[in-house]
């Protein structure tokens, strides 16, 4: 008798995604769904999709979801969680959404110690609009709007949002992980699970897990090279590990 030992998480819908080959969103979606399944919170979770490549996350994640204006997810989440303290509210945001247009919202949600779980996908580029520079873009990285490679002089340095948030008393758990190897992916899942558990346990503050995520399309790399790029290059600028909590 054959035994089924590995299956799709219940919360992850059985459908093809629109993501490019080698994109990290598929891995991140799956991890979030595995965690929701394992914690048994599918029926009480409300998710927030960002503006960006993951705008259609509700087509893949089988929980109640809302799609909101670019960067405003932490404010929307605040409105939801304050009025529904018994629900589990999470936002899923990219680096354009969270680290560029939505910096005020994420900082103040953390500052108010909102009881939220934030999944922050950092792939160092604006994906959906065609590969433009993000605040997290690496120095020297070629994008649609940094054709010569990002220069600190005039285009600034990569923005380390997790470090910024970690100093706020209202942020109780901040960890950066990478979706770049099986071991790192397991660590990412553990971090996500902890971030959801904190909210389930009514911990008084905001949890954020930053996931360094591959974008082979706009990094102009093969998928294996993108994984290596995270391990060998991105982690120099965005060191992995727990920053708080």
């Amino acid at each position, binding site marked *: 008798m054959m035994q089924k030992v590995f299956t799709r998480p219940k919360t992850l819908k059985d459908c093809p995604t629109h993501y490019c080959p080698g994109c990290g969103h598929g891995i991140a979606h799956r991890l979030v769904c595995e965690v929701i399944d394992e914690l048994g919170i*599918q*029926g*009480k*979770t*409300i998710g927030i999709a960002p503006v960006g490549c993951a*705008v*259609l996350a*509700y087509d893949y994640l*089988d*929980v*109640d*979801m*809302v*799609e*909101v*204006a670019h960067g*405003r997810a932490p*404010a*929307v*989440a*605040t*409105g*939801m*969680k*304050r*009025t*529904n303290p018994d*629900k589990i509210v999470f936002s899923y945001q990219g680096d354009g959404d969270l680290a560029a247009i939505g910096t*005020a*919202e994420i900082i*103040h949600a953390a*500052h*108010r110690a909102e009881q939220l779980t934030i999944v922050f996908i950092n792939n160092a580029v604006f994906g959906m609009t065609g590969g433009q520079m993000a605040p997290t873009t690496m120095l020297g990285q070629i994008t649609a709007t940094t054709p010569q490679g990002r220069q600190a002089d005039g285009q600034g340095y990569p923005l380390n949002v997790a470090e910024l948030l970690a100093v706020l008393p209202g942020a109780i758990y901040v960890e950066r992980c990478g979706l770049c190897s099986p071991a790192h992916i397991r660590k990412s899942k553990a971090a996500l699970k902890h971030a959801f558990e904190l909210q389930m346990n009514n911990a008084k503050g905001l949890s954020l897990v930053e996931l360094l995520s591959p974008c082979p399309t706009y990094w102009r790399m093969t998928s294996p090279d993108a994984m290596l790029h995270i391990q060998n290059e991105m982690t120099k600028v965005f060191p992995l590990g727990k920053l708080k909590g």
Partner: protein
Amino acid sequence: MCGNEAMAEAAIQAGLDAYFGYPITPQNEVTAYMSQRMAEEKRVFVQSESELAAINMVFGAAATGKRTMTSSSSPGISLMQEGISYLAAAELPCVIVNVMRGGPGLGNIAPSQGDYFQSVKGGGHGDYHCIVFGPSGVQEFADIMPLAFDLADKYRIPAIILADGILGQMMEPVVIPQNAVRRTQDAGLPKKDWALTGAQGRKQNIVRSLWLADGAVEQHNYDLQAKYRQIEKNETRCEQTDADDADIIIVAYGICARIAKRAAQQAREQGIKVGCIRPITLWPFPSEIISKAADKSPIFLVVEMSCGQMLEDVRLAVAGKTPVVFWGRPGGGIVTVEKVLEKIQGLVTNPKKK
């Protein structure tokens, strides 16, 4: 009570679950009042980091089916336009109070009606409307609040209460409608089965405003427009005073309507037949009533604390049947009874003068 406090208490009595706001003059009494009373009622009050955040907190609470509102004044309302467009697109009910001040830009903190266009023509991007009320006294400011929540829920649409600095600040005796909580179960309002409450035992709910499939946004727009036509048919509200036999009909809303009515009364005492039409809903606009009144060929005098914004809707309704003239003051200048009366007298001696 001042108008701001009366309206705030009326919202609480109408079952407000959550208030989100950011300080701005001349509506600060609302935020202060809410911070105290919402805590007493064990409901939600959050002072946000910006008006952008406030309107998106409203979006979040509304998406879960709660009764929610924000209040602000002109520059803050400009910041909220992105959120209002999303609320309209996602068909989320809420109430937004604008206690208008002088503009454009930072302007001043004096009363104004300069945000009429922004409120009734959309304001943010895309083809949409909000229901817009223009109360003309503290009592009406309070009375409209439960109605605004009900209509917002009924039609899944943001409702705007367009007040001004005078209404917000002035004190009048007021009776707050008590326990005016009308919810789905007892008031014939539709069930909020679309709300995000956790998908326990049912299919996933999605609140969205992005429709990528070919023709989907077009269809969504047609659906919205069909809803707007229903609202125009069912919810247009307007008050007429002595308009039937009038040679001059003043069209004014909000505080200007009270000033206009007083001027009309004084004109009648001088033997000039003046009447008033006061739109209570600015969108939907009482175009048909104005159009019918125009058949009797009075002169229409539009009075506003702006350079003439509602004027355009009156002209559209009158459609050239009879002259439409304007008197108003922009940028925080207050309209007076004497000036309106002077304008009326001028129309009698020289009716063609514009």
